[in-house]
């Protein structure tokens, strides 16, 4: 899983039917000290109601995503699975 911060949103009208009506968020990877990595990012489906600015946990593996979605044929790899309250380093 990846620690990230929700940076923005992406809206697509024409897309694969599985993604219709599902919220897609741009998540930037965070360093353990909470600063943005700046190069790594993921476009993930939201399963927890996350918003821009929140620190989240992103699952970036297809089989886990399909397990969480409960659909063995879901064409999805990246999911926001948790909203992080607090990170302690060291």
């Amino acid at each position, binding site marked *: 899983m990846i620690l990230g911060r929700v940076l923005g949103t992406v809206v*697509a009208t024409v897309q694969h039917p599985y993604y219709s009506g599902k919220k897609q968020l741009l998540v930037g990877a965070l360093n353990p000290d909470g600063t943005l990595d700046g190069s790594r*990012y993921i476009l993930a489906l939201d399963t927890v109601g996350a918003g821009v600015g929140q620190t989240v946990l992103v699952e970036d593996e297809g089989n886990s995503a399909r397990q969480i979605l409960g659909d063995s044929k879901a064409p999805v790899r990246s999911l926001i699975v948790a909203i992080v309250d607090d990170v302690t380093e060291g």
Partner: protein
Amino acid sequence: MKLGRVIGTLVATVKPEGMKGLKLLIVRPLTADLKDDGDPFVATDASAQASSGDLVTWEAAREAALLHDPWFVPIDHAVVGIVDQHHLGEYPGRRG
């Protein structure tokens, strides 16, 4: 998923049976703030309507293969959708 820009299309007559009928696009991967991010690749079009110049979302590996119907075709990248709106808050961009 990741963001990308469709920079071309291509047609192949001789190809695997499982790829028949799938539209092929050349996609350049982009960073979160829409800057070029590496070498272009060829992807199938699971959005059905993507064309040159479109800002798109794409998926790779097994998930790309799952995007098509019938599912699990022999491909490694697929375009998922065409982006209408892209909003990015404060972003430091790539360092160095």
